[in-house]
């Protein structure tokens, strides 16, 4: 049938809403069946568009935006927690590590296996001393004695300044030969009490901030210099 050839073109025309080509328009005007088909297809697409329009343009609930803002506020406040919890965890971990370090320093024998007194002198230099590979037993013994002596001196200064060293117990520091005195001086400087006062102005916006009392410090000259970036601010 001739009209079947036009059917697809009619659907396309109804879907696109475009103007019919001349040949098709002349046929539609002369053929009642094709005219009805075109009208039916046009009404179908009108239905489809109306259905889509009514389905998609629904009213938004009046409190929708308010709810989203509230949820956003909750999320923002929750978002701060992980940072603070991580910070708190980090602080606790650092404190635990410090405590462990102090514990091991004061009780070094608990952190390692018990060894006979001469064992360390025979084995440890074989690891640290370069001459150990040569197998020179006299040189090895002399080095071991020096190393042990150096360790004891360092322990005496750094760990417990007023307590004499107890053999090879305590913190062990392997010192290169000839640098023992340097290390001793360095540790004396570290162990010496330093006169240092710390002033923290964490609540700088607080109006009723009381002046700091530093009774034990005598300040002969005080030079206050503003930090460069602060002066620019």
């Amino acid at each position, binding site marked *: 049938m001739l009209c079947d050839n036009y059917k697809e073109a009619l*659907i396309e025309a109804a*879907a*696109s809403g475009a103007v019919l080509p001349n040949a098709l328009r002349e046929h539609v005007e002369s053929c009642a069946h094709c005219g*009805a088909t075109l009208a*039916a*297809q046009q*009404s*179908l*697409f*009108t*239905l*489809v*568009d*109306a*259905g*889509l*329009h*009514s*389905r*998609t*343009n*629904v009213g*938004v*609930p009046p409190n*929708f*935006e308010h*709810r*989203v*803002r509230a*949820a*956003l506020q909750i*999320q*923002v406040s929750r978002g701060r927690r992980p940072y603070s919890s991580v910070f708190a965890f980090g602080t606790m971990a650092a404190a635990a590590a410090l405590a462990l370090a102090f514990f091991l320093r004061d009780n070094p024998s608990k952190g390692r296996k018990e060894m006979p007194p001469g064992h360390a002198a025979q084995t440890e230099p074989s690891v640290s001393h370069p001459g150990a590979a040569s197998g020179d037993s006299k040189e090895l013994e002399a080095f071991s004695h020096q190393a042990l002596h150096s360790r004891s001196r360092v322990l005496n200064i750094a760990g417990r300044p007023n307590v004499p060293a107890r053999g090879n117990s305590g913190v062990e520091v392997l010192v290169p030969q000839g640098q023992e005195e340097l290390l001793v001086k360095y540790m004396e400087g570290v162990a010496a009490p330093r*006169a*240092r*006062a*710390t*002033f*923290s*102005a*964490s609540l*700088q916006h607080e109006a009723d901030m009381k002046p700091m009392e530093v009774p034990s*410090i*005598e*300040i*002969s*000259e*005080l030079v*206050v210099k503003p*930090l460069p*970036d*602060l002066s620019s*601010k």
Partner: protein
Amino acid sequence: MQELVLIQPIRAAGEQWSQEAAQAARRREFEERLAECGPLAFRVARGVLRNDADAEDVAQEALLRAYRRFDRLRDAQRFRGWLVRIVFRLALDRARSVKRREVREIEWAQPTRRPAPATAEELAASSEFQAQCDRALDELPEKLRLVLLLAAMEGHSLQEVAGMLNLPVGTVKSRLFAGRKKLAEKLQCYVTTTKRR
């Protein structure tokens, strides 16, 4: 001379303040976009889910997700399209997870219906047609469905839809045409209904 060290945490506080200020600015900017694009997010979700409560949930989730990733958005002009894609994806996930299709089919199988609508507009608004249209729309490929929804929504032009989806206008046009045609094929039975009237 004794050494007095003044430790002023101004620098740290300043960094914290600048971070908070940046966060507040980001939030302000996002809230402006929320006022502008919130309804669009809801409507896209509603277009897929056809349920106000679910659509509200999904739109809210999408907006919060968009806020979390707001920093990653390089071009702020693309926020609408970005949000639309997030909402559409979440809504599809929700639609798949909930078995609503069976419920709708049960409703569709019930013989008692309202009186037959007289005009095409009434027919389009009728629950019977809406249910059939929903089913037909659900069966469309996702890329056609999203274009159909956006083109019918809020009077978007082809250019606006193309901009939102980051597609050429020609692609949007062809998808729109194909989608409407597929829908019409699935709703062909309504042609005879209206023709008889």
